[in-house]
Protein backbone atom coordinates (compact mmCIF):
# COMPACT_ATOMS: atom_id res chain seq x y z
CA UNK A 1 0.00 0.00 0.00
CA UNK A 2 1.45 3.39 -0.87
CA UNK A 3 0.09 6.81 -0.32
CA UNK A 4 -0.47 8.85 -3.44
CA UNK A 5 -0.71 12.50 -2.50
CA UNK A 6 -3.11 14.54 -4.56
CA UNK A 7 -2.01 17.35 -6.84
CA UNK A 8 -3.23 20.01 -4.43
CA UNK A 9 -1.20 19.74 -1.27
CA UNK A 10 -4.19 19.74 1.08
CA UNK A 11 -3.32 16.41 2.70
CA UNK A 12 -5.93 14.45 0.75
CA UNK A 13 -4.99 11.46 -1.33
CA UNK A 14 -6.45 9.56 -4.26
CA UNK A 15 -7.41 6.10 -3.24
CA UNK A 16 -8.75 3.15 -5.14
CA UNK A 17 -11.15 0.85 -3.35
CA UNK A 18 -13.30 -1.97 -4.55
CA UNK A 19 -16.76 -1.59 -3.04
CA UNK A 20 -19.45 -4.16 -3.63
CA UNK A 21 -17.63 -5.41 -6.69
CA UNK A 22 -17.06 -2.02 -8.26
CA UNK A 23 -13.75 -0.24 -8.46
CA UNK A 24 -14.12 3.27 -7.03
CA UNK A 25 -11.74 6.20 -6.83
CA UNK A 26 -12.05 8.73 -4.08
CA UNK A 27 -10.12 11.77 -2.96
CA UNK A 28 -10.12 11.92 0.83
CA UNK A 29 -7.98 12.49 3.89
CA UNK A 30 -6.21 9.25 4.72
CA UNK A 31 -7.58 9.34 8.28
CA UNK A 32 -11.21 9.55 7.19
CA UNK A 33 -12.94 6.56 8.68
CA UNK A 34 -13.95 3.92 6.16
CA UNK A 35 -17.46 4.22 7.66
CA UNK A 36 -17.67 7.89 6.72
CA UNK A 37 -16.24 7.35 3.24
CA UNK A 38 -18.85 4.65 2.57
CA UNK A 39 -21.69 6.81 3.85
CA UNK A 40 -20.70 10.24 2.56
CA UNK A 41 -18.54 9.68 -0.52
CA UNK A 42 -20.33 6.64 -1.90
CA UNK A 43 -23.80 7.29 -0.51
CA UNK A 44 -23.90 3.78 0.88
CA UNK A 45 -25.84 4.72 3.98
CA UNK A 46 -26.80 1.16 4.89
CA UNK A 47 -23.74 0.91 7.14
CA UNK A 48 -24.51 2.73 10.38
CA UNK A 49 -22.69 4.46 13.22
CA UNK A 50 -23.88 3.38 16.66
CA UNK A 51 -20.91 4.08 18.91
CA UNK A 52 -17.71 5.01 17.09
CA UNK A 53 -15.77 2.72 19.44
CA UNK A 54 -15.98 -0.65 17.72
CA UNK A 55 -18.37 -1.96 20.38
CA UNK A 56 -21.80 -2.13 18.72
CA UNK A 57 -20.99 -3.58 15.29
CA UNK A 58 -23.56 -1.43 13.43
CA UNK A 59 -20.74 -0.36 11.14
CA UNK A 60 -19.69 -3.94 10.28
CA UNK A 61 -18.55 -4.57 6.71
CA UNK A 62 -16.41 -7.25 5.09
CA UNK A 63 -12.89 -6.20 4.13
CA UNK A 64 -11.22 -8.83 1.96
CA UNK A 65 -13.72 -11.29 3.35
CA UNK A 66 -12.99 -10.48 7.00
CA UNK A 67 -15.58 -8.89 9.27
CA UNK A 68 -14.36 -5.49 10.50
CA UNK A 69 -15.81 -2.45 12.26
CA UNK A 70 -15.55 0.24 9.60
CA UNK A 71 -15.57 2.99 12.26
CA UNK A 72 -12.11 1.79 13.28
CA UNK A 73 -10.57 1.54 9.79
CA UNK A 74 -8.75 4.59 8.42
CA UNK A 75 -9.65 4.63 4.74
CA UNK A 76 -6.00 4.50 3.70
CA UNK A 77 -5.80 1.01 5.19
CA UNK A 78 -8.69 -0.05 2.96
CA UNK A 79 -6.92 0.92 -0.23
CA UNK A 80 -6.81 -1.99 -2.63
CA UNK A 81 -9.15 -4.04 -0.45
CA UNK A 82 -12.47 -5.49 -1.50
CA UNK A 83 -15.20 -4.06 0.69
CA UNK A 84 -18.62 -5.62 0.95
CA UNK A 85 -21.50 -3.74 2.59
CA UNK A 86 -25.13 -4.62 3.20
CA UNK A 87 -25.97 -3.05 -0.16
CA UNK A 88 -23.54 -5.47 -1.77
CA UNK A 89 -25.33 -8.42 -0.25
CA UNK A 90 -28.64 -7.14 -1.55
CA UNK A 91 -27.37 -6.30 -5.00
CA UNK A 92 -25.60 -9.54 -5.71
CA UNK A 93 -28.24 -11.94 -4.60
CA UNK A 94 -31.69 -10.47 -4.36
CA UNK A 95 -32.90 -13.47 -2.45
CA UNK A 96 -29.95 -13.45 -0.13
CA UNK A 97 -30.84 -16.19 2.30
CA UNK A 98 -29.89 -14.27 5.38
CA UNK A 99 -31.98 -11.24 4.51
CA UNK A 100 -34.90 -13.53 3.77
CA UNK A 101 -34.70 -15.42 7.04
CA UNK A 102 -34.27 -12.20 9.01
CA UNK A 103 -37.56 -11.10 7.47
CA UNK A 104 -39.32 -14.34 8.23
CA UNK A 105 -38.06 -14.92 11.74
CA UNK A 106 -38.34 -11.40 13.14
CA UNK A 107 -34.60 -10.80 13.17
CA UNK A 108 -35.09 -7.12 12.41
CA UNK A 109 -37.18 -4.83 14.61
CA UNK A 110 -36.01 -1.21 14.52
CA UNK A 111 -33.49 -2.21 11.87
CA UNK A 112 -30.55 -0.07 12.90
CA UNK A 113 -28.33 -3.00 13.94
CA UNK A 114 -29.63 -5.11 11.06
CA UNK A 115 -27.18 -4.28 8.28
CA UNK A 116 -24.17 -4.95 10.52
CA UNK A 117 -25.83 -8.01 12.02
CA UNK A 118 -26.56 -9.51 8.61
CA UNK A 119 -23.02 -8.87 7.41
CA UNK A 120 -21.70 -10.53 10.58
CA UNK A 121 -24.10 -13.45 10.16
CA UNK A 122 -23.06 -13.98 6.53
CA UNK A 123 -19.44 -13.91 7.66
CA UNK A 124 -20.26 -16.50 10.29
CA UNK A 125 -21.83 -18.85 7.75
CA UNK A 126 -18.81 -18.41 5.50
CA UNK A 127 -16.72 -19.86 8.32
CA UNK A 128 -19.23 -22.33 9.78
CA UNK A 129 -21.74 -23.56 7.24
CA UNK A 130 -23.66 -25.41 9.97
CA UNK A 131 -23.04 -23.39 13.11
CA UNK A 132 -24.13 -24.52 16.54
CA UNK A 133 -25.99 -22.09 18.76
CA UNK A 134 -22.70 -21.48 20.58
CA UNK A 135 -20.98 -20.62 17.29
CA UNK A 136 -23.77 -18.15 16.50
CA UNK A 137 -23.62 -16.55 19.93
CA UNK A 138 -19.88 -16.10 19.57
CA UNK A 139 -20.00 -15.00 15.96
CA UNK A 140 -22.51 -12.24 16.68
CA UNK A 141 -21.15 -11.19 20.08
CA UNK A 142 -19.69 -8.03 18.54
CA UNK A 143 -23.07 -6.87 17.22
CA UNK A 144 -25.35 -5.32 19.80
CA UNK A 145 -29.12 -5.48 19.36
CA UNK A 146 -31.34 -3.67 21.84
CA UNK A 147 -34.70 -4.67 20.39
CA UNK A 148 -34.80 -8.42 19.89
CA UNK A 149 -32.93 -9.95 22.80
CA UNK A 150 -31.16 -11.91 20.01
CA UNK A 151 -33.49 -14.93 20.13
CA UNK A 152 -35.10 -14.35 16.75
CA UNK A 153 -31.77 -13.40 15.24
CA UNK A 154 -30.41 -16.82 16.27
CA UNK A 155 -33.43 -18.43 14.61
CA UNK A 156 -32.87 -16.45 11.43
CA UNK A 157 -29.23 -17.55 11.25
CA UNK A 158 -30.06 -21.20 11.99
CA UNK A 159 -32.74 -21.13 9.31
CA UNK A 160 -30.39 -19.57 6.76
CA UNK A 161 -27.83 -22.28 7.53
CA UNK A 162 -30.49 -24.95 7.10
CA UNK A 163 -31.40 -23.62 3.66
CA UNK A 164 -27.95 -24.03 2.21
CA UNK A 165 -24.73 -22.14 1.57
CA UNK A 166 -24.54 -18.45 2.37
CA UNK A 167 -25.17 -15.76 -0.20
CA UNK A 168 -22.56 -15.56 -2.89
CA UNK A 169 -20.64 -12.39 -2.41
CA UNK A 170 -17.53 -10.80 -3.67
CA UNK A 171 -14.68 -12.32 -1.65
Amino acid at each position, binding site marked *: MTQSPGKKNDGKCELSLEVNGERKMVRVYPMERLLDVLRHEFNLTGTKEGCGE*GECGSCSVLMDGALVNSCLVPVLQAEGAAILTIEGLAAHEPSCRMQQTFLECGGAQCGICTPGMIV*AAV*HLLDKHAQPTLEDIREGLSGNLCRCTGYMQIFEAVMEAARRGPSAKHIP
Partner: protein
Amino acid sequence: MRSDPSDYQLVAPGSLHDAVSLLAAEPGAWLPIAGGTDVMVQYAAGKLTARKLLSIWNLPELRKIDILPDEIRIGAGCTYTDLREHEFVRRDLPLLASAARWTGGIANQNRGTIGGNIVNASPAADSLPALLVYDAELVLISARGERRLPYFGFHTGYKKTQLLPDELIRSVCLPRRFSTYVSYARKVGARNAQAISKVCIAALGLLSSGAADTPRIEDVRIALGSVAPIPFRLIETEKTIQGKMIDRGLLTLAKQIAGREIRPIDDIRSTARYRAAVAGNLIVEFLARLRATGEQAVEPGAIV
Protein backbone atom coordinates in the same frame (compact mmCIF):
# COMPACT_ATOMS: atom_id res chain seq x y z
CA MET B 1 -16.54 11.60 15.81
CA ARG B 2 -14.61 14.27 17.66
CA SER B 3 -11.49 14.62 15.53
CA ASP B 4 -10.94 16.43 12.24
CA PRO B 5 -9.34 14.09 9.67
CA SER B 6 -7.69 17.07 7.99
CA ASP B 7 -5.54 17.54 11.10
CA TYR B 8 -3.87 14.17 10.64
CA GLN B 9 -1.33 12.60 8.38
CA LEU B 10 -1.33 8.88 7.76
CA VAL B 11 1.23 7.21 5.60
CA ALA B 12 1.52 3.56 4.64
CA PRO B 13 4.99 2.56 3.50
CA GLY B 14 4.85 -0.72 1.66
CA SER B 15 7.62 -2.40 3.60
CA LEU B 16 9.03 -2.86 7.07
CA HIS B 17 12.28 -1.34 5.85
CA ASP B 18 10.55 1.86 4.74
CA ALA B 19 8.60 2.00 7.99
CA VAL B 20 11.67 1.87 10.24
CA SER B 21 13.49 4.30 7.96
CA LEU B 22 10.75 6.84 8.52
CA LEU B 23 10.85 6.27 12.26
CA ALA B 24 14.63 6.75 12.17
CA ALA B 25 14.34 9.96 10.18
CA GLU B 26 11.90 11.49 12.67
CA PRO B 27 11.98 9.52 15.91
CA GLY B 28 8.98 10.16 18.11
CA ALA B 29 7.11 12.06 15.39
CA TRP B 30 5.18 9.14 13.95
CA LEU B 31 2.75 6.93 15.85
CA PRO B 32 2.57 3.44 14.39
CA ILE B 33 -0.96 2.17 13.83
CA ALA B 34 -1.64 -1.46 13.05
CA GLY B 35 -5.25 -2.67 13.26
CA GLY B 36 -6.40 0.55 14.89
CA THR B 37 -8.62 -1.03 17.52
CA ASP B 38 -7.05 1.19 20.21
CA VAL B 39 -5.79 4.21 18.25
CA MET B 40 -9.01 4.74 16.30
CA VAL B 41 -11.11 4.69 19.49
CA GLN B 42 -8.96 7.47 20.94
CA TYR B 43 -9.19 9.31 17.62
CA ALA B 44 -12.98 9.17 17.53
CA ALA B 45 -13.13 10.40 21.12
CA GLY B 46 -10.97 13.39 20.23
CA LYS B 47 -8.21 12.13 22.52
CA LEU B 48 -5.47 11.21 20.08
CA THR B 49 -2.55 13.55 20.69
CA ALA B 50 -0.37 12.23 17.85
CA ARG B 51 -0.96 13.97 14.52
CA LYS B 52 1.26 11.86 12.29
CA LEU B 53 0.52 8.18 11.96
CA LEU B 54 2.44 5.42 10.29
CA SER B 55 0.37 2.47 9.13
CA ILE B 56 2.01 -0.90 9.66
CA TRP B 57 -1.21 -2.79 8.93
CA ASN B 58 -0.78 -5.93 6.89
CA LEU B 59 2.95 -5.61 6.29
CA PRO B 60 3.89 -9.10 5.05
CA GLU B 61 7.12 -9.14 7.11
CA LEU B 62 5.09 -8.64 10.28
CA ARG B 63 2.11 -10.80 9.52
CA LYS B 64 3.51 -14.31 9.52
CA ILE B 65 4.06 -17.14 11.96
CA ASP B 66 7.27 -19.17 11.73
CA ILE B 67 7.49 -22.59 13.30
CA LEU B 68 11.01 -23.47 14.38
CA PRO B 69 12.03 -26.61 16.27
CA ASP B 70 12.35 -24.82 19.61
CA GLU B 71 10.22 -21.77 19.19
CA ILE B 72 7.25 -20.24 17.49
CA ARG B 73 7.94 -16.81 16.09
CA ILE B 74 4.80 -14.71 15.76
CA GLY B 75 4.99 -11.57 13.67
CA ALA B 76 3.83 -8.52 15.61
CA GLY B 77 1.30 -7.74 12.89
CA CYS B 78 -0.56 -11.01 13.37
CA THR B 79 -4.15 -10.49 14.33
CA TYR B 80 -6.01 -12.34 17.06
CA THR B 81 -7.81 -14.25 14.34
CA ASP B 82 -4.44 -15.30 12.90
CA LEU B 83 -3.46 -16.57 16.36
CA ARG B 84 -6.65 -18.37 17.28
CA GLU B 85 -6.84 -20.16 13.93
CA HIS B 86 -3.22 -21.22 13.68
CA GLU B 87 -2.76 -24.95 14.25
CA PHE B 88 0.56 -24.65 16.10
CA VAL B 89 -0.50 -21.74 18.28
CA ARG B 90 -3.57 -23.70 19.31
CA ARG B 91 -1.58 -26.81 20.04
CA ASP B 92 1.61 -25.48 21.62
CA LEU B 93 0.44 -22.15 23.03
CA PRO B 94 -3.12 -22.76 24.19
CA LEU B 95 -3.01 -19.86 26.67
CA LEU B 96 -2.37 -17.46 23.81
CA ALA B 97 -4.98 -19.04 21.54
CA SER B 98 -7.65 -18.82 24.21
CA ALA B 99 -6.76 -15.22 25.05
CA ALA B 100 -7.10 -14.40 21.35
CA ARG B 101 -10.59 -15.92 21.33
CA TRP B 102 -11.60 -13.81 24.33
CA THR B 103 -10.37 -10.47 23.01
CA GLY B 104 -13.25 -8.39 21.68
CA GLY B 105 -15.66 -9.78 19.14
CA ILE B 106 -14.86 -11.31 15.77
CA ALA B 107 -14.54 -7.94 14.01
CA ASN B 108 -12.00 -6.65 16.53
CA GLN B 109 -10.12 -9.97 16.46
CA ASN B 110 -9.75 -9.55 12.71
CA ARG B 111 -7.95 -6.25 13.19
CA GLY B 112 -6.32 -6.19 16.62
CA THR B 113 -2.70 -7.35 16.55
CA ILE B 114 -0.45 -8.92 19.16
CA GLY B 115 2.16 -6.20 18.62
CA GLY B 116 -0.41 -3.48 19.05
CA ASN B 117 -1.63 -5.13 22.22
CA ILE B 118 1.88 -5.19 23.69
CA VAL B 119 2.73 -1.61 22.75
CA ASN B 120 -0.64 -0.26 23.92
CA ALA B 121 0.45 -1.81 27.22
CA SER B 122 -2.88 -1.90 28.99
CA PRO B 123 -2.55 -3.88 32.21
CA ALA B 124 -5.95 -5.39 31.38
CA ALA B 125 -4.83 -6.86 28.04
CA ASP B 126 -5.90 -10.47 27.71
CA SER B 127 -2.90 -11.90 25.83
CA LEU B 128 -0.10 -10.45 27.87
CA PRO B 129 -0.24 -12.75 30.92
CA ALA B 130 0.17 -15.67 28.51
CA LEU B 131 3.34 -14.12 27.10
CA LEU B 132 4.68 -13.75 30.63
CA VAL B 133 4.19 -17.36 31.63
CA TYR B 134 5.53 -18.61 28.32
CA ASP B 135 8.77 -16.64 28.88
CA ALA B 136 8.27 -14.84 25.62
CA GLU B 137 11.01 -12.81 24.03
CA LEU B 138 10.53 -9.85 21.73
CA VAL B 139 12.49 -8.99 18.64
CA LEU B 140 12.56 -5.24 18.19
CA ILE B 141 13.61 -3.69 14.91
CA SER B 142 14.81 -0.27 13.92
CA ALA B 143 16.96 1.21 11.17
CA ARG B 144 19.88 0.43 13.47
CA GLY B 145 19.18 -3.28 13.43
CA GLU B 146 17.40 -5.79 15.63
CA ARG B 147 17.59 -6.58 19.31
CA ARG B 148 16.04 -9.38 21.27
CA LEU B 149 14.96 -9.10 24.88
CA PRO B 150 12.79 -10.95 27.38
CA TYR B 151 9.18 -9.82 27.45
CA PHE B 152 9.36 -9.95 31.23
CA GLY B 153 10.51 -6.45 32.15
CA PHE B 154 9.40 -4.93 28.86
CA HIS B 155 6.72 -2.99 30.69
CA THR B 156 8.43 -0.43 32.91
CA GLY B 157 5.33 1.23 34.35
CA TYR B 158 1.71 1.97 33.57
CA LYS B 159 1.50 2.17 29.78
CA LYS B 160 5.29 2.53 29.51
CA THR B 161 7.58 0.08 27.71
CA GLN B 162 11.21 -0.34 26.75
CA LEU B 163 10.39 0.37 23.11
CA LEU B 164 12.55 3.20 21.78
CA PRO B 165 10.97 5.94 19.64
CA ASP B 166 12.50 4.60 16.44
CA GLU B 167 11.58 0.95 17.07
CA LEU B 168 8.80 -1.43 16.17
CA ILE B 169 8.16 -4.88 17.55
CA ARG B 170 9.02 -7.31 14.81
CA SER B 171 8.09 -10.58 16.42
CA VAL B 172 7.12 -12.33 19.61
CA CYS B 173 9.12 -15.50 20.19
CA LEU B 174 7.64 -18.24 22.31
CA PRO B 175 9.47 -21.38 23.35
CA ARG B 176 7.86 -24.71 22.55
CA ARG B 177 8.75 -26.42 25.79
CA PHE B 178 5.46 -26.26 27.67
CA SER B 179 3.50 -28.99 25.94
CA THR B 180 3.71 -31.27 28.98
CA TYR B 181 2.46 -28.50 31.28
CA VAL B 182 -1.11 -28.16 32.42
CA SER B 183 -2.55 -24.91 31.04
CA TYR B 184 -5.14 -22.82 32.82
CA ALA B 185 -6.60 -19.54 31.63
CA ARG B 186 -9.62 -17.55 32.58
CA LYS B 187 -10.93 -14.08 31.93
CA VAL B 188 -13.35 -12.35 34.26
CA GLY B 189 -15.17 -9.43 32.68
CA ALA B 190 -18.47 -7.63 33.02
CA ARG B 191 -20.02 -9.91 30.42
CA ASN B 192 -19.16 -12.99 28.40
CA ALA B 193 -17.90 -11.26 25.28
CA GLN B 194 -16.43 -7.91 24.29
CA ALA B 195 -15.37 -7.02 27.81
CA ILE B 196 -12.25 -5.45 29.22
CA SER B 197 -11.04 -7.82 31.91
CA LYS B 198 -11.61 -7.10 35.57
CA VAL B 199 -9.09 -9.85 36.26
CA CYS B 200 -7.53 -12.37 33.91
CA ILE B 201 -5.13 -15.20 34.53
CA ALA B 202 -2.78 -17.39 32.53
CA ALA B 203 -1.03 -20.21 34.33
CA LEU B 204 1.12 -23.24 33.63
CA GLY B 205 1.83 -26.06 36.03
CA LEU B 206 3.90 -29.20 36.06
CA LEU B 207 3.54 -31.88 38.68
CA SER B 208 6.52 -33.99 39.65
CA SER B 209 6.16 -37.65 38.77
CA GLY B 210 5.91 -40.08 41.62
CA ALA B 211 3.32 -40.70 44.29
CA ALA B 212 -0.03 -39.77 42.74
CA ASP B 213 -1.74 -39.14 46.04
CA THR B 214 0.68 -36.42 47.09
CA PRO B 215 1.11 -34.33 43.97
CA ARG B 216 3.99 -31.95 44.25
CA ILE B 217 4.60 -28.86 42.13
CA GLU B 218 7.63 -29.27 39.90
CA ASP B 219 7.18 -25.95 38.10
CA VAL B 220 4.47 -23.31 38.25
CA ARG B 221 4.00 -20.04 36.42
CA ILE B 222 1.20 -17.62 37.11
CA ALA B 223 0.46 -14.26 35.53
CA LEU B 224 -2.50 -11.94 35.98
CA GLY B 225 -3.94 -8.95 34.18
CA SER B 226 -5.69 -6.01 35.80
CA VAL B 227 -4.07 -6.42 39.24
CA ALA B 228 -1.12 -4.06 38.82
CA PRO B 229 -0.04 -1.17 36.57
CA ILE B 230 1.51 -3.74 34.23
CA PRO B 231 0.72 -7.33 33.23
CA PHE B 232 1.94 -9.15 36.26
CA ARG B 233 3.89 -12.35 36.86
CA LEU B 234 3.47 -13.56 40.43
CA ILE B 235 7.11 -14.32 41.13
CA GLU B 236 6.76 -14.40 44.92
CA THR B 237 3.77 -16.70 44.84
CA GLU B 238 5.51 -19.02 42.42
CA LYS B 239 8.65 -19.16 44.57
CA THR B 240 6.65 -19.88 47.69
CA ILE B 241 4.70 -22.81 46.30
CA GLN B 242 7.41 -24.28 44.07
CA GLY B 243 8.26 -27.84 45.07
CA LYS B 244 5.45 -28.14 47.57
CA MET B 245 2.58 -30.58 47.87
CA ILE B 246 -0.78 -29.29 46.77
CA ASP B 247 -2.96 -29.59 49.84
CA ARG B 248 -5.51 -27.30 51.40
CA GLY B 249 -2.82 -25.45 53.33
CA LEU B 250 -0.96 -24.64 50.14
CA LEU B 251 -4.05 -23.21 48.51
CA THR B 252 -4.57 -20.89 51.43
CA LEU B 253 -0.90 -19.93 51.43
CA ALA B 254 -0.91 -19.24 47.69
CA LYS B 255 -3.92 -17.01 48.08
CA GLN B 256 -2.26 -15.13 50.92
CA ILE B 257 1.04 -14.50 49.14
CA ALA B 258 -0.71 -13.52 45.93
CA GLY B 259 -2.87 -11.11 47.89
CA ARG B 260 0.27 -9.40 49.19
CA GLU B 261 2.00 -9.41 45.82
CA ILE B 262 -0.67 -7.90 43.59
CA ARG B 263 -1.69 -4.25 43.62
CA PRO B 264 -5.23 -3.95 42.20
CA ILE B 265 -7.03 -0.63 42.18
CA ASP B 266 -10.53 0.76 42.16
CA ASP B 267 -11.45 2.04 38.72
CA ILE B 268 -14.44 2.57 36.50
CA ARG B 269 -14.76 -1.15 35.87
CA SER B 270 -14.32 -2.72 39.28
CA THR B 271 -12.89 -2.50 42.79
CA ALA B 272 -9.55 -3.44 44.33
CA ARG B 273 -11.22 -5.72 46.89
CA TYR B 274 -13.15 -7.60 44.26
CA ARG B 275 -10.12 -8.03 42.03
CA ALA B 276 -8.01 -9.25 44.91
CA ALA B 277 -10.64 -11.77 45.97
CA VAL B 278 -11.24 -13.09 42.46
CA ALA B 279 -7.52 -13.28 41.73
CA GLY B 280 -7.12 -15.42 44.81
CA ASN B 281 -10.04 -17.63 43.78
CA LEU B 282 -8.63 -18.11 40.31
CA ILE B 283 -5.26 -19.15 41.67
CA VAL B 284 -6.94 -21.64 43.98
CA GLU B 285 -9.02 -22.96 41.09
CA PHE B 286 -5.88 -23.38 39.00
CA LEU B 287 -4.01 -25.27 41.69
CA ALA B 288 -7.02 -27.48 42.43
CA ARG B 289 -7.36 -28.38 38.77
CA LEU B 290 -3.62 -28.91 38.49
CA ARG B 291 -3.75 -31.34 41.35
CA ALA B 292 -6.73 -33.14 39.82
CA THR B 293 -4.88 -33.87 36.60
CA GLY B 294 -2.62 -36.16 38.59
CA GLU B 295 -0.67 -38.54 36.39
CA GLN B 296 -2.85 -38.02 33.31
CA ALA B 297 -1.08 -37.03 30.12
CA VAL B 298 -1.75 -33.48 29.04
CA GLU B 299 -3.86 -33.20 25.90
CA PRO B 300 -2.20 -30.80 23.43
CA GLY B 301 -3.96 -27.47 23.29
CA ALA B 302 -6.21 -28.19 26.26
CA ILE B 303 -7.09 -25.70 28.98
CA VAL B 304 -8.18 -27.23 32.29
